[in-house]
């Protein structure tokens, strides 16, 4: 469903993505991990063209993202994105947050959009908060609303950019649970995260990046359980992150 072919990107002199080649199949859950600045967020943001790239190609469902003729808003509408800092719209109620994309982009009528919004809020356990503004919710609740907002567009793929790293430890699980449910239902997902427990439980594949390069790209069990076959850099990363 998503194919990265030799994707490279530079910020001026600095190369953030270095010949990245990988793919994500339909229904697959891929966790992308690596140290800060390794390019993992940038990689998933090339999928919906939030981050343009200079070389290589990215194909999403047969559409080339880098092609100048591609209708980017249309493509983005089909790729749900969840951000580290939620990025709910603070001036709109929770329900309005979930309706905006449906009405303005998908042209659904307001009644239909609202019904869909409430069904999704119910699903993430937040229907009681439907009329509140995001500023009145906890971080974990806001992130669940953000996931529901992305789902309101009926996306074919969900992109998560460190969805739990801005949360209080107590709230991490409520968000991971929603994501696990989503994975179980067969959603195609790319997840940038440091939650290795989640990766081990939910991911089909793990990609490890460092310095803009994809160092490892293998099945989850292979990644965690076959340490001898991993590179030096990966073992060092895992030894530091798995200790606690």
């Amino acid at each position, binding site marked *: 469903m998503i194919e990265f072919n030799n994707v490279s990107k530079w910020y001026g002199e600095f190369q953030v993505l270095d010949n990245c080649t990988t793919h994500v199949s339909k229904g697959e859950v891929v966790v992308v991990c690596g140290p800060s600045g390794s390019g993992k967020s940038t990689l998933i943001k090339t999928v*919906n063209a*939030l981050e343009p790239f200079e070389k290589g190609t990215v194909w999403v469902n047969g559409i080339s993202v880098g092609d100048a003729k591609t209708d980017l*808003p*249309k*493509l*983005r*509408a*089909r*790729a*749900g*994105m969840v*951000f*580290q*800092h939620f*990025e*709910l*719209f*603070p*001036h709109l109620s929770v329900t309005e947050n979930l309706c*905006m*994309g449906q009405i*303005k*982009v*998908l042209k659904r009528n307001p009644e239909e959009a609202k019904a869909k919004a409430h069904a999704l809020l119910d699903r993430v356990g937040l229907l009681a908060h439907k009329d*509140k*503004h*995001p*500023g*009145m919710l906890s971080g974990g609740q806001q992130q669940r609303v953000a996931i529901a*907002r*992305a789902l309101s*567009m009926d996306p074919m793929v969900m992109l998560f950019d460190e969805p739990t790293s801005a949360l209080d430890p107590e709230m991490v699980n409520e968000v991971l649970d929603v994501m696990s449910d989503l994975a179980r239902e067969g959603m195609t997902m790319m997840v940038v995260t440091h939650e290795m427990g989640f990766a081990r439980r939910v991911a089909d594949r793990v990609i490890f990046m460092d310095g803009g390069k994809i160092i490892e790209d293998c099945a989850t069990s292979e990644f965690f359980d076959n340490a001898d076959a991993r590179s030096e850099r990966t073992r060092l990363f895992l030894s530091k992150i798995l200790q606690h």
Partner: protein
Amino acid sequence: MNYDWSWTVFVDLSSNGVDTYLYTLLMGVGWTLALSLSAGVISLFFGSIVAVLRTAPSVWLHFIGTVYVEIFRNIPLLVQMFLWYFVLPEVLPKDWGDALKQMGQPWGQFIPAVLCLSFYGTARLAETLRAGIQSLPRGQGQAGTAMGLTPLQVYRYVIMPQAYRIVIPPLTSEFMGIVKYSSVALTIGLLELTGQARAMQEFSFHIFEAFSAATAGYLAINGCVVMAMHYLERHFALPGRIGWKARMKLSGSAS
């Protein structure tokens, strides 16, 4: 000091021999209000557009916005007023220029004054709004873009509603500024409040009374601006943001 204080001068007949000074001063207030309101509304509308240009990713749009702002905020308002009034009719096609010159009192002065204050106000409001837009987290725009909104929709539905709320305090100063700058229109002969006060002073020699009245007039107008903006600030306050506590306190419920 030998000065003949007389507050009853306001009910004396003014230089036109028909109306009292009080009446002409109130007419002045009317023109000041008309001028400030027109210029304020136009400046807010076009200032928003220029602010969007200034923050647009396109180099060309950004350039156009920057050139506009730098031209109109770098020239003294008085000079701009003279340019609109004296120079514009000469550089326009002859028919248009003549039409402008023949418009007479007060529209012949009012229209150049509105143009002048609007072009100047647009540049100033654009800068204020730009600061508001740029104070938003970058992720807000990204979130709108990621759900498939076009760049214009991102501004319309995500960025601007938040930017306007943030800049209400400096916007208050800008609107009060427009009211005060409107007095420059007296130099091209528009009899707004300052112009009427000066006319009264010249004819009656009651300079203190005349300018006391003008002072009271400006204080009252700008007092209304402050109150209206305060109301807007509270009315549009968002949970957990600036102004929310004040709104809760007034409505008597707990936050």
